[in-house]
């Protein structure tokens, strides 16, 4: 019996150190991807020039390209990736289902529909569209939650209703697109596929503010969220205030998703894939919020680089993540099946 605690502690320490190493690795990869976004382009700039621009010095050529074009783009990619990753994994954890990501259950559709509607029908542009999108996404999330509520919320019911709402909103989007003029179509398409092309500080700063608020709130709920995975009854028995936790967590996650969608469009599959990828890297048993955020950032930054320079045409990041997401989805589910997990 005296040896047991040591063995127990040993196993726990091993797992904890593995998680720390993976987290560090993820952080490093994100930093590299960020740096690459600043350095790579039609003109290659070295790290020295990049640092000088960031610091505020005036470097001919680089100041504009790196400072005004690439920096906001990379920042947007980073922040949007974190937001999608954390928002997505929150939904997946809360609904106990990796397929129940916000882009599947209608939250992103709500933001897109509002954005498209705002541009084409209401003739809005810029921050007004973003605001409409955020309000709409929150409204849709609330609607879904209310519709799914009957003596409390059942995960499966929430998901199904979300799918129904998403279908309805997607058809609205299609209809609006048909009405769109050629000019509006370009702007409207951004709301459908997700792109960093329109990145500017105007878009980045509000997103940063929201992240600074929502991320700590989510992190504070990390442990109750983990416990919710055990089932509502077991979590309540362990002292978790189930409904309250769920509400806080949903609002924060929706806020993150909506603001990121407003800034960068609904970048397909990032919210959906970040959680499972993080789970496979860091291992089970801990909160996936931070790893998923890092994975999300990594995916968005890498996909954007890929879309811009690696293929013939310049593809927006949403198309790349969408195209890659499809086979990854199948792979993911095949792995789940083999390990005996359930969806």
């Amino acid at each position, binding site marked *: *019996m005296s040896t*047991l*605690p040591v*063995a*127990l*502690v040993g*196993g*726990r320490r091993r*797992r904890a150190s593995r998680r720390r190493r993976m987290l560090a690795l993820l952080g490093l990869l994100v930093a590299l991807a960020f740096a690459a976004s600043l350095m790579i382009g039609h003109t290659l700039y070295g790290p020295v020039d990049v640092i000088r621009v960031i610091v505020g010095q005036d470097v001919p050529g680089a100041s504009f390209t790196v400072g005004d074009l690439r920096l906001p783009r990379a920042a947007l990619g980073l922040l949007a990736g974190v937001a999608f990753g954390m928002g997505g994994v929150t939904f997946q954890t809360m609904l*106990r289902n990796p397929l129940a990501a916000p882009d599947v259950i209608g939250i992103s559709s709500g933001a897109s529909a509002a954005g498209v509607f705002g541009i084409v029908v209401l003739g809005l542009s810029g921050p007004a569209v973003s605001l409409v999108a955020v309000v709409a996404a929150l409204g849709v999330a609330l609607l879904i939650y209310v519709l799914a509520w*009957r*003596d409390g919320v059942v995960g499966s019911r929430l998901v199904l209703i979300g799918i129904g709402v998403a279908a309805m909103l997607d058809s609205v989007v299609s209809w609006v697109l048909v009405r769109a003029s050629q000019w509006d179509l370009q702007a409207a398409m951004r709301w459908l596929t997700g792109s960093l092309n329109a990145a500017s500080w105007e878009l980045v700063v509000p997103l940063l503010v929201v992240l600074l608020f929502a991320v700590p709130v989510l992190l504070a709920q990390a*442990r109750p969220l*983990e*416990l919710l*995975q*055990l*089932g509502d*009854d*077991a979590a*309540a*028995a*362990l*002292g*978790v*205030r189930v409904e309250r936790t769920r509400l806080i967590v949903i609002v924060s996650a929706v806020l993150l998703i909506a603001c990121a969608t407003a800034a960068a469009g609904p970048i397909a599959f990032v919210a959906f894939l970040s959680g499972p990828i993080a*789970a496979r890297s860091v*291992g*089970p*048993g801990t909160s996936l919020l931070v790893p998923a955020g890092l994975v999300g950032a990594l995916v968005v930054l890498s996909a954007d680089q890929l879309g811009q320079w690696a293929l013939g045409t310049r593809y927006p990041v949403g198309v790349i993540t969408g195209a890659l997401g499809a086979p990854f989805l199948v792979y993911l589910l095949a792995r*789940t099946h083999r*390990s*005996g*997990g*359930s969806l």
Partner: protein
Amino acid sequence: MNAPENQLVVERASLSYGDRSIVTDLSLALPEGGVTVIVGANACGKSTLLRAMARLLRPTGGRVLLDGRDVHTIPTRQLARRLGLMPQSPIAPEGIVVADLVARGRHPHQGPFGRWTTADEAAVAAALEATGVSDLADRPVDELSGGQRQRVWIAMALAQETSVLLLDEPTTYLDLAHQIEVLDLLARLNAERGTTVAMVLHDLNLAARYADHLVALRAGRVVAAGTPADVVTEDIVEEVFGLPCMVVADPVTGTPLVVPR
């Protein structure tokens, strides 16, 4: 006569889901430090009653008291330190290992920053030891057998270090050998630690064998409550289960054994 201390008391509770009334005006007391088993036919309200005792369901009438206080007035975390529940279909997060799952049971004892103390470590170790799953500590829960998994869930409830433990059908889906294994474990925990145990069982004979206090429900009302010898009689069994039977003494334990006619 000095009645044993009653820790958890249900006082004239009425329970319903929406407008469907399950339990009406039911009163029940769990003897402290004893093993109470609740039995009854399907859909008689036994799980509903247990959930109300675990504060998962708010009574529409009456109340549930823990040490004299209405459970709904006790702060959630504080209640979780006194009352533990093993629900009917607990879900194990994918890939989690036994030690980590059992560690979740320490949540009510941990501060806001979740610092892991030696006390937590000791509690987890003791729980693993008591349920006999110490050598499975690093194995993923998904890979265990049904009986082993149930023991792990019990270990998690044990790590919570509560004085009352509620279990909703802990033996479902287990074969007989594993059912006995789990029930023996619970009996031993009750004897060694003095934990008050209350569980819902669907097998009347096992209930009679392990219970100190047996409660028979029918259609949301208590038909009989007392020792197994008092409750498991031919008349009561016929009334509660609709089964004509003969009651004999179990040759091994001496407790009542129901033999259907």
